[in-house]
């Protein structure tokens, strides 16, 4: 029972975690990308298109590339041209919803039933997966889940143990100082956003290839936005994002458990639960934590001379 619940929490959390870790990297560089939802959706469709012919692994690759491409559009406008990040991100998501819908119908016929695709099967870590309680949840999962968990230390290492990561954080905290230290601010931010897009694309691909084996329009259902909330709840730290994603995954899993228990409570209340508790957690735990100094400011804040 608890084993299954934990496994569900991890399953729900892992695409969110993938996207959120990428967004942590992006936001540490000072860029908030609301196009994340669009990148996920594009990743999901690309996975479905490629997996049909090339198998699940090809699908995963295509998902990453699609996420990257969507992020590149965002980066071009928000970083290249220094436009407002919130609005650029919203537009990118809007465009991705339209484009995936149109492409999906063109590719699979107007009344296209989602194709049934090859999937990434769970890979059991020998021995470990039989551990009581957490074995199933942590050690018998499909590839993207391991990728999500691996992304946490990887992002931590990149951010805090490489020159590039340090340059990125400097760009995100104080662009003028970073520039003075020779950091090519726009370039590192751009690369961070692309990395975030790549992970978001993988997250979308994992929905298709590791979770349901097919594509449906709007199947990401707001997960990209939730991932952004997770970044904030996780205090802009990969480990924090891990905790926040697991918390949200657990709340969502709990929501399904409550519904399945047949309690005589309107199910909509359970649907609200994860979001309301996330808000509460934001108010309680995070409110006073400082966001990266340049977050969302783009060129407006940094370009103008004396500060």
């Amino acid at each position: 029972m608890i084993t299954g619940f934990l496994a569900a929490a991890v399953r729900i959390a892992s695409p969110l975690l993938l996207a959120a870790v990428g967004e942590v990297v992006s936001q540490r560089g000072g860029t908030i990308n609301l196009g994340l939802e669009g990148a996920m959706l594009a990743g999901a469709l690309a996975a479905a298109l490629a997996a049909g012919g090339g198998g699940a692994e090809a699908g995963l690759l295509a998902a990453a590339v699609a996420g990257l491409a969507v992020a590149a559009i965002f980066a071009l406008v928000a970083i290249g041209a220094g436009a407002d990040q919130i609005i650029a991100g919203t537009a990118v998501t809007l465009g991705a919803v339209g484009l995936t819908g149109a492409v999906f119908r063109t590719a699979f016929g107007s009344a296209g039933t989602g194709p049934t695709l090859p999937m990434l099967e769970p890979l059991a870590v020998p021995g470990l997966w039989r551990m009581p309680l957490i074995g199933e949840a942590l050690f018998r999962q499909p590839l993207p889940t391991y990728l999500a968990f691996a992304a946490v230390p990887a992002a931590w290492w990149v951010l805090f143990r490489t020159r590039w990561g340090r340059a990125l954080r400097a760009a995100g905290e104080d662009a003028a100082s970073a520039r003075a230290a020779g950091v090519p601010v726009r370039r590192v931010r751009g690369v961070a956003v692309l990395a975030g897009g790549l992970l978001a694309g993988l997250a979308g691909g994992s929905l298709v290839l590791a979770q349901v084996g097919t594509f449906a329009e709007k199947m990401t259902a707001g997960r990209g936005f939730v991932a952004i909330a997770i970044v904030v709840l996780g205090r802009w730290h990969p480990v924090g994002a891990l905790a926040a994603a697991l918390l949200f995954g657990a709340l969502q899993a709990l929501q399904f458990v409550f519904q399945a228990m047949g309690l005589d409570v309107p199910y909509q209340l359970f649907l609200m639960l994860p979001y309301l508790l996330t808000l509460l957690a934001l108010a309680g735990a995070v409110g006073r934590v400082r966001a990266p100094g340049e977050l969302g400011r783009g060129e407006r804040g940094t370009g103008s001379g004396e500060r």
Partner: protein
Amino acid sequence: MSAPSTFDLRPLTTSALALAAGLVLLAAGLAAAGHDPAAALGAMWRGAFGSWYAFTSATLLRATPLIVIGLGFALALRGGALNIGAEGQFYAGAIAATWAAFQLGALPAPLAIPLTWLAALAGGALWVLVPVVLKRRFGVLEVISTLLLNFVAEALVSLMVQGPMQEPAGIYPQSAPIPAAARLPLLPGTRLHAGFLVALALAAAMAFLLARTVWGFRLRAAGAAPRAAELIGRVDAGRFAGVALLASGAIAGLAGALEVSGVSYALYQNLSPGYGFTAIAVALLARGHPLGIVASGILFGALEAGAGAMQREAGVPSVTVYVVEAVVILAVLLADARGRSTPAVAGA
């Protein structure tokens, strides 16, 4: 209009070019997908402007909520707050308006209608009160909190139409039709309701407020440079941002009321196709200028009305129009950024 600065035609040109870019891209995409671009674009034009009926009942009807919500978003933006939660506030307003319509249906229309608006304004404001408080008390970014509340609002409206506000037979997930006294009058021969006039009046009022009044000037100052507004203008910029956010929520709520009392006559779960997000684009395209929002709202209304016709006549999926909208927004952002970066050198 914005106070003493002269009217600048450049934004108009960039918007037009951006639109052209979006349409060209659409045509190319359609051709690539095997559709006839000329037929599709022709259908689009007819669906949006082809007749008086299409213009009023398709284009202006859709433009109404976009304009109203866009005005609210712009007000918040100019006061220094980003309201990504208009979708949720729209539903909160729709719920409140529907509830009020049933309470007040016995009153004569001239009384009942404004009172439902009042209820909707309160509902929208209440919905955004949480983010306002979270921001003021706990420093939670309103971008995140308003966004999360959209999900909650979706569940809430579902709860309402299947619970306390469900139609009496208890079968369909919708409210009973609201009383006739609470319905808005229509422009004869069309489906366009008086809410469009409300949108126009609101735009005019907001233009006046921002450009002519001391309060509006202070709001703009607080949004443009909060520290300077506090130290020199002696206003509490955080408070202005909060008030602007509350007002924008209330206005999004009003849009919900107009939709219920002018179009659907009942509360439905799927009342909005994402007005709250499209309205952001509407407000941006007009650079937050109230009268410009009317124009860009009509443009987006026309695009979506045209998208319907495009699907009816040419079989092109209507979601394709989102791509056009996205291209328009991104192109305007690009053009804007370029325009901004040129004079910055002069200050050195």
